[in-house]
Protein backbone atom coordinates (compact mmCIF):
# COMPACT_ATOMS: atom_id res chain seq x y z
CA UNK A 1 0.00 0.00 0.00
CA UNK A 2 1.29 3.45 -0.81
CA UNK A 3 2.13 5.98 1.88
CA UNK A 4 -0.98 7.76 3.16
CA UNK A 5 -1.25 11.56 2.75
CA UNK A 6 -1.41 12.00 6.52
CA UNK A 7 -0.19 9.42 9.02
CA UNK A 8 -0.36 10.21 12.72
CA UNK A 9 1.19 7.74 15.14
CA UNK A 10 1.17 7.70 18.92
CA UNK A 11 0.37 11.40 19.12
CA UNK A 12 0.27 12.90 22.61
CA UNK A 13 -0.18 16.48 23.65
CA UNK A 14 -0.81 18.08 27.00
CA UNK A 15 -1.27 21.66 28.09
CA UNK A 16 0.22 21.87 31.57
CA UNK A 17 -1.18 18.86 33.37
CA UNK A 18 -4.19 18.62 31.09
CA UNK A 19 -3.84 15.62 28.76
CA UNK A 20 -5.57 16.72 25.58
CA UNK A 21 -4.40 14.04 23.14
CA UNK A 22 -3.63 10.69 24.70
CA UNK A 23 -2.18 8.55 21.93
CA UNK A 24 -3.80 9.10 18.55
CA UNK A 25 -3.20 6.89 15.52
CA UNK A 26 -4.91 8.09 12.38
CA UNK A 27 -4.17 7.75 8.69
CA UNK A 28 -5.75 9.64 5.83
CA UNK A 29 -5.22 8.20 2.34
CA UNK A 30 -4.59 10.48 -0.62
CA UNK A 31 -7.93 11.76 -1.89
CA UNK A 32 -9.77 10.61 1.20
CA UNK A 33 -12.17 12.85 3.14
CA UNK A 34 -12.16 12.20 6.88
CA UNK A 35 -14.52 14.01 9.23
CA UNK A 36 -13.71 14.31 12.93
CA UNK A 37 -16.61 14.65 15.32
CA UNK A 38 -16.74 14.75 19.09
CA UNK A 39 -17.79 16.82 22.09
CA UNK A 40 -16.29 20.21 22.91
CA UNK A 41 -12.88 19.95 24.55
CA UNK A 42 -12.22 16.44 23.23
CA UNK A 43 -9.08 17.63 21.43
CA UNK A 44 -10.30 17.87 17.82
CA UNK A 45 -8.76 21.28 17.15
CA UNK A 46 -5.56 20.29 18.90
CA UNK A 47 -5.31 17.19 16.70
CA UNK A 48 -5.76 19.28 13.57
CA UNK A 49 -3.28 21.90 14.74
CA UNK A 50 -0.72 19.18 15.41
CA UNK A 51 -0.93 18.12 11.77
CA UNK A 52 0.61 21.41 10.62
CA UNK A 53 2.56 21.96 13.83
CA UNK A 54 0.66 25.01 15.00
CA UNK A 55 0.79 22.97 18.19
CA UNK A 56 3.94 21.01 18.83
CA UNK A 57 3.22 17.39 19.80
CA UNK A 58 4.77 16.13 23.02
CA UNK A 59 5.10 12.59 21.68
CA UNK A 60 4.45 10.69 18.49
CA UNK A 61 4.91 11.50 14.83
CA UNK A 62 2.98 13.26 12.13
CA UNK A 63 3.84 12.26 8.57
CA UNK A 64 2.50 14.31 5.69
CA UNK A 65 3.25 12.64 2.37
CA UNK A 66 5.96 10.64 4.01
CA UNK A 67 7.75 13.54 5.71
CA UNK A 68 7.91 13.41 9.50
CA UNK A 69 7.03 16.96 10.58
CA UNK A 70 8.04 16.30 14.16
CA UNK A 71 11.61 15.65 13.05
CA UNK A 72 13.84 18.50 14.15
CA UNK A 73 15.52 18.88 10.75
CA UNK A 74 12.27 19.45 8.91
CA UNK A 75 11.76 22.87 7.31
CA UNK A 76 8.36 23.46 8.84
CA UNK A 77 7.57 26.52 6.71
CA UNK A 78 8.19 24.51 3.57
CA UNK A 79 5.99 21.71 4.87
CA UNK A 80 3.14 24.06 5.77
CA UNK A 81 2.98 25.39 2.21
CA UNK A 82 1.58 22.05 1.18
CA UNK A 83 -0.96 21.87 4.01
CA UNK A 84 -3.91 24.24 3.66
CA UNK A 85 -5.76 25.22 6.81
CA UNK A 86 -9.17 26.79 7.25
CA UNK A 87 -10.07 28.22 10.65
CA UNK A 88 -13.35 28.56 12.45
CA UNK A 89 -12.87 32.34 12.66
CA UNK A 90 -11.72 32.74 9.01
CA UNK A 91 -8.62 34.75 9.98
CA UNK A 92 -8.50 36.70 6.75
CA UNK A 93 -5.77 39.35 6.81
CA UNK A 94 -7.80 42.37 7.85
CA UNK A 95 -5.55 44.98 6.24
CA UNK A 96 -5.48 43.40 2.78
CA UNK A 97 -8.03 43.20 -0.02
CA UNK A 98 -9.46 39.82 -0.89
CA UNK A 99 -7.12 39.55 -3.86
CA UNK A 100 -4.05 40.42 -1.77
CA UNK A 101 -5.14 37.93 0.89
CA UNK A 102 -4.81 35.31 -1.82
CA UNK A 103 -1.59 36.59 -3.37
CA UNK A 104 0.60 37.63 -0.42
CA UNK A 105 1.78 34.14 0.55
CA UNK A 106 2.09 33.09 -3.09
CA UNK A 107 4.42 36.00 -3.68
CA UNK A 108 6.35 36.14 -0.39
CA UNK A 109 6.55 32.40 0.20
CA UNK A 110 6.36 30.71 -3.20
CA UNK A 111 8.09 33.57 -4.96
CA UNK A 112 5.49 33.79 -7.70
CA UNK A 113 5.38 36.93 -9.81
CA UNK A 114 2.54 39.38 -9.48
CA UNK A 115 0.85 38.31 -12.68
CA UNK A 116 0.94 34.61 -11.94
CA UNK A 117 -0.18 35.12 -8.35
CA UNK A 118 -3.12 37.24 -9.48
CA UNK A 119 -4.10 34.66 -12.06
CA UNK A 120 -4.04 31.82 -9.53
CA UNK A 121 -5.94 33.96 -7.04
CA UNK A 122 -8.68 34.85 -9.50
CA UNK A 123 -9.05 31.23 -10.55
CA UNK A 124 -9.52 30.18 -6.95
CA UNK A 125 -11.91 33.02 -6.23
CA UNK A 126 -13.97 31.87 -9.19
CA UNK A 127 -13.85 28.37 -7.79
CA UNK A 128 -15.55 29.52 -4.57
CA UNK A 129 -17.91 31.78 -6.52
CA UNK A 130 -16.48 35.12 -5.39
CA UNK A 131 -14.54 36.40 -8.39
CA UNK A 132 -16.41 39.71 -8.21
CA UNK A 133 -15.20 40.36 -4.65
CA UNK A 134 -11.49 40.50 -5.54
CA UNK A 135 -11.14 44.15 -4.55
CA UNK A 136 -13.34 44.08 -1.44
CA UNK A 137 -11.91 44.27 2.06
CA UNK A 138 -12.63 41.27 4.31
CA UNK A 139 -14.75 43.37 6.67
CA UNK A 140 -17.12 44.13 3.79
CA UNK A 141 -17.97 40.45 3.31
CA UNK A 142 -20.46 38.22 5.09
CA UNK A 143 -19.11 35.44 7.26
CA UNK A 144 -19.89 32.85 4.61
CA UNK A 145 -18.09 34.86 1.95
CA UNK A 146 -15.10 35.37 4.24
CA UNK A 147 -14.84 31.66 4.86
CA UNK A 148 -14.99 30.92 1.14
CA UNK A 149 -12.22 33.47 0.58
CA UNK A 150 -10.22 31.74 3.31
CA UNK A 151 -10.65 28.44 1.47
CA UNK A 152 -9.57 30.06 -1.79
CA UNK A 153 -6.57 31.56 -0.01
CA UNK A 154 -5.45 28.13 1.17
CA UNK A 155 -6.06 26.62 -2.28
CA UNK A 156 -3.94 29.30 -3.94
CA UNK A 157 -0.88 27.65 -2.42
CA UNK A 158 -1.70 24.40 -4.30
CA UNK A 159 -1.87 22.33 -1.10
CA UNK A 160 -1.74 18.57 -1.10
CA UNK A 161 -4.00 18.25 1.92
CA UNK A 162 -6.57 20.56 3.47
CA UNK A 163 -7.43 20.88 7.15
CA UNK A 164 -10.76 22.40 8.19
CA UNK A 165 -11.45 23.28 11.84
CA UNK A 166 -15.20 23.73 12.22
CA UNK A 167 -15.36 25.96 9.14
CA UNK A 168 -19.08 26.66 9.49
CA UNK A 169 -19.47 26.94 13.26
CA UNK A 170 -19.16 30.73 13.29
CA UNK A 171 -21.69 31.22 10.50
CA UNK A 172 -25.35 32.17 10.47
CA UNK A 173 -27.34 29.06 9.51
CA UNK A 174 -28.34 30.40 6.08
CA UNK A 175 -24.67 30.93 5.13
CA UNK A 176 -23.50 27.43 6.04
CA UNK A 177 -24.72 25.82 2.83
CA UNK A 178 -22.51 27.86 0.48
CA UNK A 179 -19.37 26.95 2.39
CA UNK A 180 -20.27 23.27 2.60
CA UNK A 181 -21.00 23.29 -1.13
CA UNK A 182 -17.48 24.58 -1.85
CA UNK A 183 -16.06 21.85 0.38
CA UNK A 184 -18.16 19.21 -1.33
CA UNK A 185 -16.84 20.26 -4.74
CA UNK A 186 -13.31 20.18 -3.40
CA UNK A 187 -13.87 16.66 -2.14
CA UNK A 188 -15.24 15.60 -5.51
CA UNK A 189 -12.13 16.97 -7.18
CA UNK A 190 -10.15 14.51 -5.11
CA UNK A 191 -8.62 16.77 -2.44
CA UNK A 192 -7.38 15.03 0.69
CA UNK A 193 -9.36 16.56 3.53
CA UNK A 194 -9.37 16.30 7.32
CA UNK A 195 -12.46 18.11 8.56
CA UNK A 196 -13.56 18.84 12.12
CA UNK A 197 -17.27 19.51 11.90
CA UNK A 198 -20.62 19.34 13.64
CA UNK A 199 -22.44 19.16 10.29
CA UNK A 200 -23.60 15.55 10.43
CA UNK A 201 -25.39 15.76 7.11
CA UNK A 202 -22.16 16.87 5.43
CA UNK A 203 -20.20 14.10 7.15
CA UNK A 204 -22.75 11.54 6.03
CA UNK A 205 -22.76 12.61 2.41
CA UNK A 206 -19.18 13.68 1.77
CA UNK A 207 -16.92 11.84 4.21
CA UNK A 208 -15.30 8.55 3.32
CA UNK A 209 -14.68 7.96 6.98
CA UNK A 210 -15.80 9.48 10.28
CA UNK A 211 -13.75 9.58 13.50
CA UNK A 212 -15.45 10.06 16.81
CA UNK A 213 -13.11 11.57 19.42
CA UNK A 214 -13.69 11.90 23.13
CA UNK A 215 -11.31 12.54 26.00
CA UNK A 216 -8.26 12.75 23.75
CA UNK A 217 -8.67 9.38 22.05
CA UNK A 218 -10.38 8.12 18.90
CA UNK A 219 -13.28 6.16 20.36
CA UNK A 220 -14.71 4.88 17.12
CA UNK A 221 -14.14 5.20 13.40
CA UNK A 222 -15.56 3.88 10.19
CA UNK A 223 -17.78 4.77 7.26
CA UNK A 224 -20.31 7.49 8.08
CA UNK A 225 -23.24 5.13 7.77
CA UNK A 226 -21.72 3.07 10.52
CA UNK A 227 -20.40 5.69 12.94
CA UNK A 228 -23.29 8.11 12.57
CA UNK A 229 -25.96 5.64 11.52
CA UNK A 230 -25.19 2.71 13.81
CA UNK A 231 -22.61 3.72 16.45
CA UNK A 232 -21.22 0.87 18.49
CA UNK A 233 -20.04 2.81 21.50
CA UNK A 234 -22.25 4.29 24.16
CA UNK A 235 -20.26 7.56 24.19
CA UNK A 236 -20.80 7.96 20.45
CA UNK A 237 -24.51 7.33 20.82
CA UNK A 238 -24.83 9.86 23.63
CA UNK A 239 -22.96 12.46 21.64
CA UNK A 240 -24.95 11.90 18.47
CA UNK A 241 -28.24 11.97 20.34
CA UNK A 242 -27.30 15.42 21.59
CA UNK A 243 -26.12 16.74 18.23
CA UNK A 244 -28.60 15.27 15.79
CA UNK A 245 -32.10 16.60 15.51
CA UNK A 246 -35.01 14.25 16.25
CA UNK A 247 -35.66 13.37 12.61
CA UNK A 248 -32.18 11.89 12.28
CA UNK A 249 -32.34 10.14 15.60
CA UNK A 250 -35.30 8.06 14.44
CA UNK A 251 -33.36 6.60 11.53
Amino acid at each position, binding site marked *: MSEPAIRITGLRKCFGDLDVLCGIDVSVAAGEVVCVIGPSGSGKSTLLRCVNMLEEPDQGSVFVNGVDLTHEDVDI*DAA*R*RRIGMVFQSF*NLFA*HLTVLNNLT*IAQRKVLGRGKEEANKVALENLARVGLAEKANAMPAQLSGGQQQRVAIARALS*MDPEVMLFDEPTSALDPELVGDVLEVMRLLAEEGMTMLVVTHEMQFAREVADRVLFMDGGVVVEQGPPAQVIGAPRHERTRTFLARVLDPIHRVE
Partner: protein
Amino acid sequence: MAMSKRKRTRVIRVVQYAVLVVVVAGFAATADWGRLADAFFDLDVASGMFPDVITVALVNTLIYTGLGFGFGLVVGLVLALMRLSGVPAYRWLAGIYIEFFRGLPALLVILAIGSGIPLAFPGTNLDRYVSIMIALGIVASAYMAETIRAGIQAVPKGQVEAARSLGMSSGRAMLWIVVPQAFKIILPPLTNELILLTKDSSLVLFLGSSQLQYELTQFGRTELNQSRSLTPVLVAGMCYLIITIPLSYLSRYLERRTGGTRIRSAEATEIVDTELEATK
Protein backbone atom coordinates in the same frame (compact mmCIF):
# COMPACT_ATOMS: atom_id res chain seq x y z
CA MET B 1 -31.28 69.59 54.81
CA ALA B 2 -33.93 68.13 52.57
CA MET B 3 -32.81 68.70 49.02
CA SER B 4 -33.37 66.33 46.13
CA LYS B 5 -30.29 64.97 44.48
CA ARG B 6 -30.98 66.71 41.22
CA LYS B 7 -31.58 70.04 42.95
CA ARG B 8 -28.35 69.71 44.87
CA THR B 9 -26.43 69.04 41.63
CA ARG B 10 -27.92 72.20 40.15
CA VAL B 11 -26.98 74.33 43.18
CA ILE B 12 -23.41 73.02 43.08
CA ARG B 13 -23.19 73.79 39.38
CA VAL B 14 -24.36 77.40 39.93
CA VAL B 15 -21.79 77.88 42.69
CA GLN B 16 -19.02 76.53 40.44
CA TYR B 17 -19.93 78.92 37.63
CA ALA B 18 -20.07 81.84 40.06
CA VAL B 19 -16.59 81.09 41.39
CA LEU B 20 -15.27 80.78 37.85
CA VAL B 21 -16.73 84.13 36.84
CA VAL B 22 -15.31 85.84 39.93
CA VAL B 23 -11.82 84.42 39.31
CA VAL B 24 -11.78 85.38 35.63
CA ALA B 25 -13.17 88.84 36.35
CA GLY B 26 -10.63 89.28 39.13
CA PHE B 27 -7.75 88.57 36.79
CA ALA B 28 -9.22 90.74 34.08
CA ALA B 29 -9.65 93.65 36.44
CA THR B 30 -6.28 93.48 38.16
CA ALA B 31 -4.03 92.67 35.20
CA ASP B 32 -2.40 95.58 33.41
CA TRP B 33 -3.86 95.02 29.95
CA GLY B 34 -2.11 97.96 28.41
CA ARG B 35 1.35 96.69 29.27
CA LEU B 36 0.46 93.15 28.26
CA ALA B 37 -0.76 94.38 24.90
CA ASP B 38 2.39 96.44 24.38
CA ALA B 39 4.57 93.48 25.22
CA PHE B 40 2.80 90.75 23.29
CA PHE B 41 1.16 92.56 20.40
CA ASP B 42 3.85 94.71 18.89
CA LEU B 43 2.96 94.56 15.21
CA ASP B 44 6.29 96.00 14.07
CA VAL B 45 8.20 93.30 15.88
CA ALA B 46 5.80 90.66 14.63
CA SER B 47 6.05 91.67 10.98
CA GLY B 48 9.83 91.91 11.31
CA MET B 49 9.90 88.18 12.11
CA PHE B 50 8.46 87.25 8.74
CA PRO B 51 9.24 85.47 6.53
CA ASP B 52 12.10 83.87 8.49
CA VAL B 53 9.91 82.58 11.26
CA ILE B 54 8.18 80.43 8.65
CA THR B 55 10.87 79.73 6.05
CA VAL B 56 13.60 79.01 8.59
CA ALA B 57 12.24 78.39 12.08
CA LEU B 58 9.00 76.56 11.33
CA VAL B 59 10.66 74.54 8.61
CA ASN B 60 13.50 73.55 10.93
CA THR B 61 11.06 72.54 13.65
CA LEU B 62 9.32 70.31 11.14
CA ILE B 63 12.61 68.86 9.91
CA TYR B 64 13.94 68.12 13.41
CA THR B 65 10.63 66.62 14.48
CA GLY B 66 10.39 64.54 11.33
CA LEU B 67 13.95 63.26 11.63
CA GLY B 68 13.52 62.44 15.31
CA PHE B 69 10.16 60.78 14.72
CA GLY B 70 11.43 58.66 11.84
CA PHE B 71 14.48 57.53 13.75
CA GLY B 72 12.42 56.97 16.90
CA LEU B 73 9.91 54.90 14.96
CA VAL B 74 12.58 52.58 13.58
CA VAL B 75 14.34 52.19 16.93
CA GLY B 76 10.98 51.86 18.69
CA LEU B 77 9.94 49.07 16.34
CA VAL B 78 13.19 47.22 16.91
CA LEU B 79 12.81 47.64 20.68
CA ALA B 80 9.19 46.44 20.56
CA LEU B 81 10.22 43.34 18.62
CA MET B 82 13.03 42.75 21.11
CA ARG B 83 10.56 43.06 23.99
CA LEU B 84 8.39 40.39 22.40
CA SER B 85 11.30 38.19 21.40
CA GLY B 86 11.75 34.67 22.65
CA VAL B 87 15.37 35.49 23.47
CA PRO B 88 15.56 36.62 27.12
CA ALA B 89 18.68 38.76 26.56
CA TYR B 90 16.82 40.82 23.93
CA ARG B 91 13.86 41.31 26.24
CA TRP B 92 16.08 42.52 29.07
CA LEU B 93 18.15 44.83 26.91
CA ALA B 94 15.06 46.47 25.46
CA GLY B 95 13.46 46.68 28.89
CA ILE B 96 16.50 48.39 30.36
CA TYR B 97 16.71 50.84 27.45
CA ILE B 98 13.04 51.74 27.75
CA GLU B 99 13.06 52.19 31.53
CA PHE B 100 16.28 54.19 31.34
CA PHE B 101 15.25 56.71 28.72
CA ARG B 102 11.68 57.04 29.92
CA GLY B 103 12.93 57.85 33.39
CA LEU B 104 15.13 60.75 32.37
CA PRO B 105 14.14 64.31 31.46
CA ALA B 106 14.19 64.75 27.69
CA LEU B 107 16.49 67.77 28.01
CA LEU B 108 19.10 65.76 29.86
CA VAL B 109 19.06 63.02 27.23
CA ILE B 110 19.35 65.53 24.40
CA LEU B 111 22.26 67.30 26.08
CA ALA B 112 24.03 64.05 26.84
CA ILE B 113 23.63 62.67 23.34
CA GLY B 114 24.14 65.92 21.47
CA SER B 115 27.43 66.58 23.20
CA GLY B 116 28.31 62.96 23.89
CA ILE B 117 28.38 61.81 20.27
CA PRO B 118 31.22 64.16 19.22
CA LEU B 119 33.16 62.99 22.30
CA ALA B 120 32.57 59.33 21.65
CA PHE B 121 33.49 59.50 17.99
CA PRO B 122 36.08 62.25 17.70
CA GLY B 123 36.96 63.42 14.25
CA THR B 124 33.86 61.95 12.63
CA ASN B 125 32.38 65.46 12.66
CA LEU B 126 28.83 64.20 12.68
CA ASP B 127 26.36 66.34 10.82
CA ARG B 128 24.29 68.41 13.22
CA TYR B 129 21.08 67.12 11.72
CA VAL B 130 22.21 63.57 12.43
CA SER B 131 22.97 64.41 16.08
CA ILE B 132 19.55 65.98 16.45
CA MET B 133 17.90 63.04 14.76
CA ILE B 134 19.57 60.62 17.14
CA ALA B 135 18.97 62.72 20.24
CA LEU B 136 15.26 63.35 19.57
CA GLY B 137 14.84 59.85 18.17
CA ILE B 138 16.15 58.24 21.34
CA VAL B 139 13.83 60.36 23.47
CA ALA B 140 10.86 59.35 21.30
CA SER B 141 11.81 55.71 20.78
CA ALA B 142 11.50 54.69 24.41
CA TYR B 143 7.84 55.79 24.46
CA MET B 144 7.04 54.54 20.99
CA ALA B 145 8.47 51.10 21.75
CA GLU B 146 5.79 50.49 24.35
CA THR B 147 3.07 51.84 22.08
CA ILE B 148 4.19 49.64 19.20
CA ARG B 149 4.46 46.62 21.47
CA ALA B 150 0.88 47.15 22.64
CA GLY B 151 -0.20 47.49 19.01
CA ILE B 152 1.51 44.26 18.01
CA GLN B 153 -0.11 42.45 20.91
CA ALA B 154 -3.50 43.85 19.94
CA VAL B 155 -3.38 42.07 16.57
CA PRO B 156 -5.47 38.91 16.98
CA LYS B 157 -3.47 35.71 17.31
CA GLY B 158 -5.40 34.12 14.46
CA GLN B 159 -3.69 36.47 12.00
CA VAL B 160 -0.28 34.99 12.78
CA GLU B 161 -1.66 31.46 12.73
CA ALA B 162 -3.18 32.02 9.31
CA ALA B 163 0.11 33.45 8.04
CA ARG B 164 2.14 30.60 9.50
CA SER B 165 -0.26 28.01 8.10
CA LEU B 166 0.43 29.46 4.64
CA GLY B 167 4.12 28.78 5.13
CA MET B 168 5.31 32.23 6.18
CA SER B 169 8.18 32.23 8.64
CA SER B 170 7.55 34.05 11.91
CA GLY B 171 9.62 36.97 10.64
CA ARG B 172 7.62 37.27 7.43
CA ALA B 173 4.35 36.96 9.30
CA MET B 174 5.49 39.77 11.60
CA LEU B 175 6.63 41.98 8.72
CA TRP B 176 3.75 41.48 6.28
CA ILE B 177 0.80 40.68 8.50
CA VAL B 178 1.24 41.82 12.10
CA VAL B 179 3.22 45.06 11.91
CA PRO B 180 1.01 46.73 9.26
CA GLN B 181 -2.08 45.98 11.33
CA ALA B 182 -0.36 47.05 14.54
CA PHE B 183 0.47 50.45 13.04
CA LYS B 184 -3.10 50.91 11.91
CA ILE B 185 -4.23 50.28 15.47
CA ILE B 186 -1.72 52.65 17.08
CA LEU B 187 -2.06 55.50 14.60
CA PRO B 188 -3.92 57.69 17.12
CA PRO B 189 -1.38 57.26 19.95
CA LEU B 190 1.49 57.67 17.47
CA THR B 191 -0.02 60.96 16.35
CA ASN B 192 -0.03 62.08 19.98
CA GLU B 193 3.59 61.03 20.17
CA LEU B 194 4.29 63.27 17.19
CA ILE B 195 2.68 66.21 18.98
CA LEU B 196 4.85 65.64 22.05
CA LEU B 197 7.95 65.43 19.89
CA THR B 198 7.06 68.63 18.04
CA LYS B 199 7.20 70.41 21.37
CA ASP B 200 10.26 68.53 22.58
CA SER B 201 12.14 69.52 19.42
CA SER B 202 12.48 72.95 21.06
CA LEU B 203 14.99 71.38 23.46
CA VAL B 204 17.64 71.15 20.74
CA LEU B 205 18.24 74.87 21.22
CA PHE B 206 20.52 73.83 24.05
CA LEU B 207 22.79 72.14 21.54
CA GLY B 208 23.75 75.45 19.99
CA SER B 209 23.37 76.21 16.32
CA SER B 210 23.91 78.72 13.56
CA GLN B 211 21.10 81.08 12.62
CA LEU B 212 19.95 79.08 9.65
CA GLN B 213 19.45 76.10 11.93
CA TYR B 214 17.19 77.89 14.43
CA GLU B 215 13.93 76.22 15.14
CA LEU B 216 10.88 78.05 16.47
CA THR B 217 11.77 78.33 20.13
CA GLN B 218 15.34 79.47 19.58
CA PHE B 219 14.24 81.82 16.86
CA GLY B 220 11.64 83.27 19.22
CA ARG B 221 14.11 83.62 22.04
CA THR B 222 16.69 85.39 19.90
CA GLU B 223 14.11 87.83 18.60
CA LEU B 224 12.92 88.32 22.15
CA ASN B 225 16.41 89.35 23.26
CA GLN B 226 16.86 91.71 20.34
CA SER B 227 13.46 93.38 20.34
CA ARG B 228 12.86 93.48 24.09
CA SER B 229 9.25 92.65 23.26
CA LEU B 230 7.38 89.47 24.15
CA THR B 231 5.73 89.43 20.73
CA PRO B 232 8.15 86.81 19.30
CA VAL B 233 7.03 84.39 22.02
CA LEU B 234 3.45 84.81 20.89
CA VAL B 235 4.33 84.40 17.21
CA ALA B 236 6.44 81.30 17.83
CA GLY B 237 3.67 79.87 20.00
CA MET B 238 1.15 80.41 17.20
CA CYS B 239 3.44 78.56 14.83
CA TYR B 240 3.53 75.55 17.16
CA LEU B 241 -0.25 75.56 17.36
CA ILE B 242 -0.48 75.57 13.57
CA ILE B 243 1.28 72.20 13.72
CA THR B 244 -0.10 70.67 16.88
CA ILE B 245 -3.81 71.52 16.73
CA PRO B 246 -4.43 69.86 13.34
CA LEU B 247 -2.45 66.83 14.55
CA SER B 248 -4.58 66.71 17.65
CA TYR B 249 -7.74 66.74 15.54
CA LEU B 250 -6.26 64.09 13.27
CA SER B 251 -5.50 61.91 16.26
CA ARG B 252 -9.04 62.22 17.59
CA TYR B 253 -10.48 61.55 14.15
CA LEU B 254 -8.36 58.41 13.75
CA GLU B 255 -9.33 57.29 17.21
CA ARG B 256 -13.01 57.67 16.45
CA ARG B 257 -12.63 55.85 13.15
CA THR B 258 -10.77 52.86 14.54
CA GLY B 259 -12.06 52.96 18.11
CA GLY B 260 -15.51 51.58 17.35
CA THR B 261 -14.43 48.40 15.63
CA ARG B 262 -11.19 47.69 17.41
CA ILE B 263 -11.87 47.28 21.07
CA ARG B 264 -8.39 46.01 21.70
CA SER B 265 -6.74 49.20 20.53
CA ALA B 266 -7.95 50.65 23.83
CA GLU B 267 -5.02 48.84 25.35
CA ALA B 268 -2.56 50.71 23.17
CA THR B 269 -4.24 54.05 23.75
CA GLU B 270 -4.36 53.51 27.46
CA ILE B 271 -0.64 52.95 27.74
CA VAL B 272 0.04 56.11 25.81
CA ASP B 273 -2.41 58.05 27.93
CA THR B 274 -0.51 57.11 31.05
CA GLU B 275 2.68 58.08 29.27
CA LEU B 276 1.21 61.43 28.36
CA GLU B 277 0.29 61.91 31.97
CA ALA B 278 3.80 60.98 33.05
CA THR B 279 5.48 63.43 30.73
CA LYS B 280 3.36 66.36 31.82
